[in-house]
């Protein structure tokens, strides 16, 4: 059972690392701010989400698990709102 959990953790965390990697590549390589913003949001939401998912089985209390989910939710909310705000600002041609 524990080996199965470990495998799950490993897979999720590995995928999370990949999304951070992808996000960074996007931030560096994409040609304009709007597409870079898109790459950033993916990394923010998916990368951290997968890491949290991978760590959940290892949480040793309900409080610790709750904290993990809360952290993800907070970053998700922040990321979504700021992405929308930045996007709007970019569309109006500010920098």
């Amino acid at each position, binding site marked *: 059972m524990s080996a199965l959990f*470990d495998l799950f*953790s*490993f897979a999720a*965390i*590995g995928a*999370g*690392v990949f999304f*951070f*990697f992808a*996000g*960074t590549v996007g*931030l*560096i390589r994409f040609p304009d*701010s709007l597409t*870079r*913003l898109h790459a*950033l949001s993916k*990394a*923010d939401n998916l*990368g*951290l989400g997968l*890491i*949290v998912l991978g*760590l959940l089985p*290892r949480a040793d209390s309900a409080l*610790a698990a709750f*904290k*993990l989910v*809360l*952290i993800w939710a*907070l*970053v998700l909310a*922040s*990321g979504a*709102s*700021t992405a929308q*705000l*930045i996007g709007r*600002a*970019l569309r*109006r041609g*500010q*920098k």
Partner: protein
Amino acid sequence: MNELLLAAAGLIVLTVAVGLARILRGPQDVDRLMAVQLLGTGGIAALLLTAYATRVPGVDDVALGLALLAAFTTMAFLNHLAANEEEADR
């Protein structure tokens, strides 16, 4: 397994650090800020991984604090974009 968690943490930090090249290159202030935001998220992920690998008490609370403040500088920045725009309109 703990080694793997730490390796993942290191990889994430180093990856997002490459993204910091955007601070150097810009070209716009928004791009620089996005790099910082990515660093913030990556930092939170690395903290969580370290917390579970080393079991130092309180590390998850640090991650919680960072998560709360993730949007902070961006909010301040966006407010000043608006302020500049109004001045330009006048």
